[in-house]
């Protein structure tokens, strides 16, 4: 149901103007079309495209950049070093156009970066970000987010949800942060006309046939597959590239390294992938995951068992990127089906 008090509409022809305004007051991150559609920092509304199903790169870059300075260091007068932490998110940021699946992935990432040790870089950015989501009414054939209890038309994990209902967007704030932003830019939003709910329901028809797999018992069903041949054929096919993990909105593994410049340098972290052999290679030369099979296995066990054991959730949001962009067409939905149906155990 549309909450009349917190909901507004914005005419489509006023959106660019709103984005211009947002770009002035915030770091605005929105989908941009270049060689592909990806979330980027934009300076004006005209750079933004909304003609896409989902971006190639998830917006995780905005919270957990591919390369991020942890701290800088410089030699002091004695034999020591001075250290100085990396840049904090200096301004509030707005992510515009995030899809419900990607928004859910942030909730999963929070579980990693929060906890006993708090990752201030990620959490700080998270805190300073307002999420403006875009409801998904035309999912791709590779989408399967309902599998994980995600409603592609819902604003559950965002601050504000926009739903395209033809000539205008229905705008719903679902958090205080979202409501505050709507107030701040009140001039762009108008009162509901009354037919919004109906228009939205009509658009939801496109979601009826979406793939929804039963994953209720997947973590338990993964356990016995640790031994056995199921992963052989997938490991055989896998090229060991980092596409699936880099594009995945829930993959969070990173490496830490130093750069040394004349009288100092910096320590940075950058995305890393469990698909790469050096990921677990120890200085001694030993590698606990020595082949592609072991690495592929780790990826799926992490998603469907290990993460679940630790955090009570599955580490997948059904965005379909790994399937869509895998050069050898490794199909995560097929793997889920094989595991849950018991087929994987019989191979």
């Amino acid at each position: 149901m549309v909450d009349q008090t917190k909901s507004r509409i914005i005419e489509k022809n006023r959106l660019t103007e709103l984005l211009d305004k947002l770009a002035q007051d915030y770091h605005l991150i929105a989908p941009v079309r270049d060689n592909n559609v990806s979330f980027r920092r934009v300076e004006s509304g005209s750079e933004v495209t909304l003609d896409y199903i989902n971006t190639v790169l998830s917006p995780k870059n905005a919270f957990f950049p591919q390369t991020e300075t942890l701290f800088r260091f410089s030699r002091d007068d004695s034999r020591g070093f001075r250290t100085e932490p990396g840049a904090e998110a200096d301004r509030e940021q707005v992510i515009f156009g995030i899809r419900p699946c990607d928004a859910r992935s942030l909730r999963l990432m929070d579980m990693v970066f929060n906890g006993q040790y708090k990752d201030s870089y990620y959490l700080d950015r998270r805190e300073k970000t307002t999420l403006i989501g875009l409801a998904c009414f035309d999912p791709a054939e590779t989408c399967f987010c309902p599998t994980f209890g995600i409603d592609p038309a819902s604003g559950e994990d965002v601050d504000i949800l926009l739903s395209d209902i033809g000539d205008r967007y229905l705008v719903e704030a679902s958090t205080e942060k979202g409501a505050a932003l709507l107030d701040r830019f009140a001039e762009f939003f108008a009162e509901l006309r009354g037919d919004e709910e109906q228009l939205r329901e009509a658009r939801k028809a496109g979601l009826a046939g979406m793939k929804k797999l039963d994953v209720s018992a997947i973590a338990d069903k993964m356990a016995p597959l640790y031994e056995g041949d199921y992963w052989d054929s997938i490991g055989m096919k896998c090229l060991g590239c980092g596409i699936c993990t880099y594009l995945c909105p829930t993959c969070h593994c990173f490496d830490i390294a130093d750069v040394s410049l004349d009288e100092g340098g910096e320590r940075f972290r950058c995305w890393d992938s469990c698909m790469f052999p050096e990921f677990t290679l120890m200085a001694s030369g030993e590698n606990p995951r020595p082949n592609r099979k072991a690495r592929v296995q780790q990826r799926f066990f992490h998603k469907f068992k290990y993460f679940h054991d630790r955090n009570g959730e599955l580490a997948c949001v059904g965005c379909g990127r790994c399937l869509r962009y895998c050069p050898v067409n490794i199909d995560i939905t097929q793997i889920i089906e094989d595991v849950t149906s018991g087929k994987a155990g019989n191979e």
Partner: protein
Amino acid sequence: MSENIYLPRMATIQSMRPETIDVTTFRVTIDGSDGTGKFEYKSGQFAEVSVLGVGEAPISITSSPTRPEAIEFSIRRVGELTNALHELEPLDKIGIRGPFGNFFPLEEMEGQNLLIIGGGIGLAPLRSVILNVFDNRAKYGKIDIIYGARSPQDLVFTSEYKEWQAVDNTRLHLTVDRGDEEWKGNVGLVPTFLREINPSPENTISITCGPPIMIKFVIEALNELGFSSEHIITTLERRMKCGVGKCGRCNIGSKYVCLDGPVFTLKQLEEMPSD
């Protein structure tokens, strides 16, 4: 912004004691405003040691918290970072993060006999336990230390053996894979030596650390000798980076070695996947 978990504290190398041709024990103090930075840890924990400009690596703490004057790390030259550490000199600065990970259950071990089995540089984390129990000698029963290395030249902490042997109700059993003319002790692999010594499992807890292949056969031997898997404790090595359970590479099944380990009982290991 809250506390930065990736920012190391600066520390000063007070001394570097060569143990073998490629192992050095670094004695380190944490720099603090008053010159004595606090660093509270327990035996079995590790720290992330940095040489700024080169990198960072997890290193187990060799010293005992009962001797708080300095922290010690015994480090073998194996990779980029450990090589850089060996190039340093006393009074040079390094970075320290931690302590991280869990620790040996010394409190639960009170009143029991201890069987400490080490191989090569694997004695480093065990030395923390050894010194710790020596400093609380009355709380523990008989202590047997079985230690082996490839050759007499590869034994670490040799300068301390006399002191260790002099401690009440304590025996140090040394073995090497290959002896030389001067070596008068036992020659043979640690698991074989362990069988020969034939320690009783009664009221005894065994803790072991060493190369994976040694650990595997030591565990086999301990099982034969009748040690239950709750009473076999080991400490594991994995490639670690962040030390705080974020970077995702040190897991064995759903356990992160850096958070849930590095110390595990055999019983816990048996419940994990085999990689």
